[in-house]
């Protein structure tokens, strides 16, 4: 039994009368790739939003490395070691690719605020090298100095992944990393996810594409109507009748 890195305990969240999360309990093991699947509106994104401090839950706790994360602001949660890739790529469209990756690297090294306003950027070669290295891993080196805003959607997502990876987070949250991607791009992303899996980073992946889920996940949890209805290894989940019901008679599986 390995360490539990993230523990979601009895989290409730409703919007108006709508219950988005009810009695959500989840434990994430360190070093594992944990996939969350479930039908649309099951509360998957809400769950991630609670984890990174974007939403405050009505009740319940989220503990990361034994520390309560509720009430912390997003930057504190990130500094604690949680990074997130969003569903629609959140990058810095007006900055170059290199700068896009250098910014999170600075955050990792300098903390949430540092007033180094008279230092020169060109003295920061260590950070620059690190950023270049990650971009190389991702395969975006050809366009180091182009504006990130001009990238294709697929490349933007990969860039965002690079921005998260450069921080070496203890926990990486991926919100549908392949949504809206062409088959070819999806395969590229699977390769990438497998590659970073070898580094032993804990990951939570939200995904609709079962092909992706079954090729990368160590553990799968199924979320329906704001609560976990099943949890287990990929093989357990494949054979679980409750899951097949949630997915309309297993049409997706």
């Amino acid at each position, binding site marked *: 039994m390995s360490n539990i890195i993230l523990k979601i305990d009895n989290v409730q969240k409703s919007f108006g009368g709508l219950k988005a999360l009810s009695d959500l309990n989840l434990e994430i093991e360190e070093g594992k790739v944990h996939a969350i699947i479930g039908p649309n509106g099951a509360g998957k994104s809400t769950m991630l939003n609670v984890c990174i401090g974007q939403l405050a839950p009505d009740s319940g706790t989220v503990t990361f490395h034994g520390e309560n994360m509720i009430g912390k602001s997003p930057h504190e949660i990130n500094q604690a070691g949680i*990074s997130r890739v969003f569903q629609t790529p959140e990058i810095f469209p007006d*900055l170059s690719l290199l700068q896009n990756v250098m*910014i999170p690297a*600075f955050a990792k090294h300098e903390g949430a605020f540092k007033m*180094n306003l008279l230092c*020169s950027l*060109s003295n920061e070669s260590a950070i620059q090298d690190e950023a270049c290295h990650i971009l190389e891993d991702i395969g975006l080196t050809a366009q180091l100095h182009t504006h990130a805003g001009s990238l294709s959607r697929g490349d933007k997502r990969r860039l965002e992944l690079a921005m998260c990876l450069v921080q070496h987070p203890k926990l990486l949250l991926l919100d549908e990393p392949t949504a809206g991607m062409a088959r070819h791009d999806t395969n590229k992303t699977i390769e990438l996810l497998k590659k970073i899996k070898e580094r032993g980073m804990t990951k939570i992946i939200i995904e609709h594409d079962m092909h992706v889920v079954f090729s990368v996940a160590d553990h799968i949890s199924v979320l329906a109507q704001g609560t976990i209805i099943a949890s287990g290894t990929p093989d357990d989940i494949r054979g679980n009748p409750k899951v097949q019901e949630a997915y309309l008679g297993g049409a997706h599986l």
Partner: protein
Amino acid sequence: MKSPTIKNDMFVMLIFSAIILSMPIWLKPLGAGYPDLLQKFAIFGIFAVGYNILFGLTGYLSFGHAAFLGIGSYTAVWSFKLLTMNVFPALIFSVLLSGLFAMLIGFITLRRSGIYFSILTLAFAQMFYNLAYSVLTPITNGETGLQLARGDARIIDRLFSDAGEGLPSTNFFGLEMSGYSGFYVCAVLLIIAFFISQRIFHSPFGIKLRAIKSNQTRMKYTGYNTRPYLLTAFVISGMYAGLAGGLMAATDPLAGAERMQWTASGEVVLMTILGGVGTLIGPMLGVGIIKYFENIFSSLNDQALLQAYSFMPDWLANIMVTITSPFVGEGWHLTLGALFVLIVVFLPGGIMEGVSLIKKRFSKTQANTETGKS
């Protein structure tokens, strides 16, 4: 988008200093080589360069910076009245006090962004302006404006000499603040201000400010506490405005509340966008162009216009005078407003965008001809 090297920055600094310091020479043939105008270039240059650190880097559009200009002016005049006619302490006080106010106002206004931030800063500027005319009259002397008087205390000056006949004039350790020497004091301060702004632009701090402008949400989820970054930028630009205000008082020891009106904030916004928001040199260009043409246009009248059109047949000249006369003299503000609209509509990136567009086109045609040859 390559990060500029230190060598490159030094080179730009040298050229910039040379251009600024030689302004009295090369502006003479253009009819703008006299000290008053030159001082204005330098002072508004400082104002705009500072404003650009906030608006250009973070995208936060403040309509309240005229308040800091006013605070700087009042502070400087009070320093002249109470302490000494030397501008050095006056400027230090101006910068510190406006910085203090900027911290206070920024702390409150930066809790919001977008148009809310603009309106909040506007509200603060209006409050200062209204108070300067009413309750704060003992400090600001209301509509008359704060002036020097013979009977002022001037404690430090009194230690060395008695009050002479007439009003004393401002100086920088003996250097007169009027005329060319005054310009050189302003110019050196502008160069220092520009240097600091350049360092900020090319520092990790500067690039983080740009990132906030580009996507503040991402910044937060990337582990940055964005508010202190914004507050620092706000305070720095407030201090620049205070310095500019102090220099205005130093070159002409009179401070009036109209300097605090929000249209004055509008002017610095216009200068910044005309030159090019977020570019290093753009705001300085904007200042040069606006102050230069203000000088020419506002001095023109129908007579002068008629003379300018004298090469045309009389009837045409008359029509031209009728068309153009609302735009000159008193009507300079009309020209300014129209320019504002045209720039935002057609060239939101300002002159610097225009320059880079031309450059791009030029290099493209060059590339085309080269490929054509081979």
